[in-house]
């Protein structure tokens, strides 16, 4: 466990010292700033527009961070051959992957907390009363991010970052359409379409399961059961991706 923590800490440090992260944070801050301006365009829905746009800014940043950085984390280790000295040490390949993933989770957590703090300041400055559901919306973004980063990590064990990003963006879009697809499958009488929907929902995570942003914006209540089942659903997908990634690199030759 100590080794996993040390690798995670080093990964955290690696990303924090990378300029790309700051470019992304500036982009997110600009979007949050824009939410303030857009909110002022409306007389009646000022709070909702600002909150909606602010959540979107945080969501986009977390998704980009998970996919883009997740796609290069393991690839860079293999490409730059730093993995040689690391795996020659008393750590398993599974510990190596878990450490890398945990490091990125820590970065995503930190960025989410930072950006939410900025959004909160913006909202409070606008006189908006922020409810507890705000944190639930953020928690949903966090769960989605860790699923996406473990997906990116898995793909990066056998292909190049550009392919990883393409695959993850594709699955991200499909993952968010799963709800609509399920709805149409329920209405459809075509057995092949129903079977196709079932197949997709088995092999692709339904990312809409973590979308509580509108509930947070409109102040609707979210049951504890829903939160727990979504957390469990997220953990299952994370484990599937990380175990698959481990199986891929378990017998890989680092030549």
């Amino acid at each position, binding site marked *: 466990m100590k080794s996993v923590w040390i690798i995670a800490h080093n990964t955290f*440090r690696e990303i924090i010292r990378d300029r790309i992260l700051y470019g992304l944070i500036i982009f997110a801050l600009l979007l949050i700033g824009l939410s303030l301006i857009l909110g002022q365009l409306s007389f009646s829905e000022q709070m909702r527009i600002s909150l909606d746009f602010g959540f979107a800014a945080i969501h986009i940043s977390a998704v980009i961070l998970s996919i883009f950085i997740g796609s290069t984390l393991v690839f860079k280790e293999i490409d730059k051959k730093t993995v040689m000295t690391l795996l020659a040490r008393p750590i398993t390949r599974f510990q190596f992957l878990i450490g890398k993933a945990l490091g990125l989770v820590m970065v995503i957590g930190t960025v989410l907390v930072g950006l939410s703090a900025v959004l909160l300041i913006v909202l409070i400055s606008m006189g908006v009363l922020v409810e507890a559901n705000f944190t639930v919306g953020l928690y949903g973004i966090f769960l989605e991010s860790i699923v996406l980063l473990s997906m990116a990590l898995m793909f990066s064990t056998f292909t190049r970052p550009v392919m990883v990003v393409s695959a993850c963006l594709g699955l991200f879009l499909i993952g968010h359409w799963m709800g609509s697809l399920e709805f149409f499958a329920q209405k459809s009488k075509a057995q092949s379409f129903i079977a196709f929907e079932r197949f997709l929902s088995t092999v692709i995570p339904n990312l809409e399961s973590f979308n509580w942003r509108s509930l947070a914006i409109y102040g609707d209540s979210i049951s504890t059961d829903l939160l727990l089942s979504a957390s469990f659903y997220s953990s299952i997908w994370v484990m599937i991706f990380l175990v698959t990634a481990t199986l891929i690199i378990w017998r890989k030759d680092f030549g």
Partner: protein
Amino acid sequence: MAKVLEVTDLRKSFKKGFIPTTVEVLKGVSFSVEPGTITGFLGANGAGKTTTMKCLLGLIYPTDGKMVYFGNRELDSQVKKRIGFLPEHPYFYEYLTGMEFLLFYGGISTSLKRSVLKDRIHDLLKRVDLFHAKDRQLRAYSKGMLQKIGLAQALIHDPEFVILDEPMSGLDPDGRYYLREIIKDTAKRGTAVFFSSHLLNDAETLCQNLVILKNGAVAYEGTTHNLLNKLGIEFEIRYYDQEKLVTEKIERDKANQRLGELIGQKKEIVSFRETVQSLEEAFIDLALKGVK
């Protein structure tokens, strides 16, 4: 005392090409490393040195063969705690400072308290002459400094066995001298050093034992002294032939006969002496020309 490493019939094949064909890189490599010795691992480019070393560390899975560490152990986490490794190219985390870099590898490899580890790092940094650069990021290090910090990471957990892949490559004479001294010092402290090198002078000066690879198989395993004696001793006769000075090199077992012939032909013998080949000449005979 148990051997640090015993490799028996190590084989490794790779599939290469669009239509995969099997290429056998290691064809039954067997050798051993004694505790506290410096063993040179020599061979031409592509002979299989780096592949062997990666097999030893579990970075590459051998197709067949056996590797036994410290008498009776297979490679596992406990064995890896007793092994240090410096790869051929010092690719390290360039965003880390020297101190952070060693804390990272030290933390992974030992269960020492951070304060004790820091003390050890300070000692090690002084030993490799990098204490002044401990707070500088590795991206600002020169090639020689990277080799030295790489060696420090290989030694951070006080291993019993160190594997160094081409530690001297790309270093200036100063850097090579420092690294040679560190390797000698490491062996003096009881650590077995196993290193590959293209620089035969360094191997000749440093190594008690040699393992020479040729086309994925061991061409020689034994002491450096024996190799130089076995392959290296020959005789040189210099004589006048029609007022022209001739120098002739003759193998040991034919030297007396040839000398007798020349005396019989009434040639004026100028000198008749034993010469010893350098490791470079011996290596060329053994690994490149295939002389046994």
